[in-house]
C-alpha cells in the first residue's frame, strides 16, 4: 500500500504559475481597494446557477495536482458564510435566481463575484430562453468575468490570480 501511496507523487506534476497578459489587464481594472482588502488568500464558494456542469468539471480540475489551487492560498469552502468570493456559473435560471440571491446575501462583506463561463458572462447558448434570467450580472453585481465554454483550468486560475495580484 505504501508503494501505491507514493507512486506518482515522486515526480511532482504541479505546474508553474500561468501568466496571460489579457488576464493581467483584467487585474489592473479591478478596484485597488478591493485588492488590498482581499489580501493574499481567498475562500471561494462555487454556485451553479444553471450550468450544464461543464464549468463545474473544470473548476473541479483546479484541485488536481497539476493546478493545485491551494498553493496560491485559494480554497473552496462549503458555505457562503465562509466565503470571500462567489464563483457563479450558468445562465441564471428562473428557478435558481432566488437561491443565488440568498447565497449572495449570506456571504459576508467585503465580497466579490466572479462570473464563470460564456453562460455566466452573457447567457451563452441559452440566451432568449424564457426559463433563464440571463447573465450573472443581471442578478448580483459581478467583479470579474472569466469567459470560455467552459474556461480551461488555466484560464480559471489566471482569473483567480488576477483577483489576488497587482496591488
Amino acid at each position: 500500500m505504501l508503494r501505491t501511496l507514493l507512486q506518482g507523487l515522486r515526480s511532482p506534476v504541479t505546474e508553474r504559475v500561468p501568466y496571460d497578459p489579457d488576464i493581467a489587464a483584467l487585474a489592473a481594472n479591478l478596484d485597488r481597494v478591493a485588492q488590498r482588502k482581499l489580501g493574499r488568500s481567498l475562500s471561494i464558494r462555487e454556485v451553479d446557477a444553471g450550468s450544464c456542469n461543464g464549468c463545474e468539471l473544470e473548476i473541479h480540475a483546479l484541485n488536481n495536482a497539476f493546478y493545485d489551487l491551494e498553493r496560491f492560498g485559494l480554497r473552496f469552502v462549503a458555505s457562503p458564510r465562509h466565503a470571500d468570493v462567489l464563483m457563479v456559473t450558468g445562465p441564471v435560471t428562473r428557478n435558481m435566481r432566488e437561491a443565488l440571491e440568498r447565497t449572495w446575501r449570506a456571504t459576508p462583506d467585503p465580497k466579490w463575484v466572479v462570473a464563470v463561463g460564456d453562460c455566466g458572462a452573457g447567457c451563452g447558448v441559452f440566451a432568449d430562453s424564457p426559463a433563464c434570467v440571463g447573465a450573472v450580472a443581471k442578478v448580483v453585481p459581478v467583479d470579474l468575468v472569466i469567459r470560455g465554454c467552459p474556461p480551461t483550468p488555466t484560464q480559471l486560475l489566471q482569473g483567480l490570480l488576477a483577483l489576488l495580484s497587482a496591488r
Partner: protein
Amino acid sequence: MTLVDVDYWQVAIRCLAAGEVTLLGLWGEPGRVHMAVFDHSVVVLSLDCPNGHYPSVGALHAPAIRLERAARDLFGLDPVGLPDTRPWLEHGANPTAYPFLPVEGEGLHQIPVGPVHAGIIEPGHFRFTADGETVVRLEQRLGYVHKGIDHLMHGATLDQATRLAGRVSGDSTAAYAFAFARAVEAALGVEPPPRAAWLRGVMAEMERIANHLGDFGAICNDASFSLMLAHCAMLRERVLRCAVTCFGHRLMMDRIVPGGVAVDLTEDGIAGIRSLIDEIRARFPALVDLYDKTASLQDRTVGTGILSADLARRFGAGGYVGRASGRDFDARRSIGYPPYDRLHFEVPVLTEGDVNARALIRVKEIDQSLSLIEQMLNQLPVGEVRVAVEPHGPAEGLAIAEAFRGDVLVWLRFDPAGGIDRCHLRDASWFQWPLLEAAIEGNIVADFPLCNKSFNCSYSGHDL
C-alpha cells in the same frame, strides 16, 4: 413515429406496467404526447391530445410520473389519472412554496439540503426524513437548472441545435452530440463517412474513461479516502489533456457534428492516445488493488445503498446503476450502432446493487473502453471525416447513444424550411434519480454522499 389512438396508448401502458416492454422516454409538444418504448427495438408512439389531456402512463407505471409532470409544465398536457400532480420543472413565482410529501411518525426529523450544496456540484433539493441516523425517506426536488431546452430547440437552426445538444449535460457532451448527430442523420438519410463513425467512438470512449476515473476517485473521497481522488484526478486530467491535443477541446465539445466529426485525428494524436492508454494501464490497476485491500473503504461501500434488481428493471435504469443491479443493458450492444457493431467488448454486469458494485462496474468499463479505443485505432478507416448535411423537412429521426452514465435518447423533427421543429433529449438520469430515493432508504444520513456519488445523476441533463 407511429400515431396511435387512445386504445392503443392504453394497451401500451398495460404492457409497460406488466414489465413486457421498457419505457425509454415520454415527452410532449403542443397538442401531442410521445412515448418511446424498447422491446428488442425502439418504438415511438404518439398520441394527439386535441383537448390537452391523455391517459396517464404514470398512473400504472411509476417511472413515467416525473416525465409526465415535466411535460405538463412545459406544454400544458394534462395526464389524466397522474397520481402526483405537483409541478416538477416549473417552480413558479414562489419556489419555496412547494408542498413536500407529508411525514408523520414519532421521533422523525427532517433535514433539508440544497439547492446550493456544500461541494462543487449542481443544484437540487433533498428533503431527508430521518429516524435518528437512519433515513426513512428521501424526497428529491429537481428542476433548479431548468433552462428551457425543449423550447429553445423549437425554431433553432441545425447549427444552433447542435451546439445546444452538446450543452444539455456537459459531462456527457460527446455522447449527446453523438446521439443528436445520429438522430439528424436518421431523419435526413445521411450516412457519415466510416472514419467519422470510428472517431466518434474514440471520443465517446475517452469521455467515458475520464468520467469513470473521476467518479471512482470521488466515490472514495466521499468515504474520506482522498488519496484515491488525488490519483484518479491526475489520470482524468491526462485524458482531458490528450483530448485537447487530439481534438482541440478538453471535453470534446462541438467535435461530433451531424454528417461526421469536426476534426480529424492525426498520426501524432494516435500516438498520444496510445501512450495515454499505456499510462492508465500502468497506473490504474494499482489503485483498484488499493481499493480492494483497504478495509476502511470496503466497509463504507459494500452493502451500502442497495438498489434491487426488480426496481432497476422496472425503471429501465441505464448505465452502471442498472448494470450493478443485474440489468444487462448497454445501448452500444443492446441497440447497437456504428462503430460498436464492428468491435468486440463485454458489458460487465453485477448483481449486488450496492455502492461497491456501481464503483466496480466503472472499473471494469474503463478496461473495456481502453480495449475499444485500441481496436478503433488499429482498424481506423482512412478517408473523409465529414459529409455535407442539408436539412429539409418534414423529417423525423431518433437515436440512442450510450453515455458514461447510461443511454441518451434524442428525438427530433425538422420543419419544412429545414430548421428544428421539435427536439427532445432524454438523459439516463430521469430513470436513475427516483431509484436513488429507494436506494438510500434504511441507510444512515452520512452515507448519502457516497450513494449519491455512486449514482452521479445529472441535474442539468434531467432539468433540461
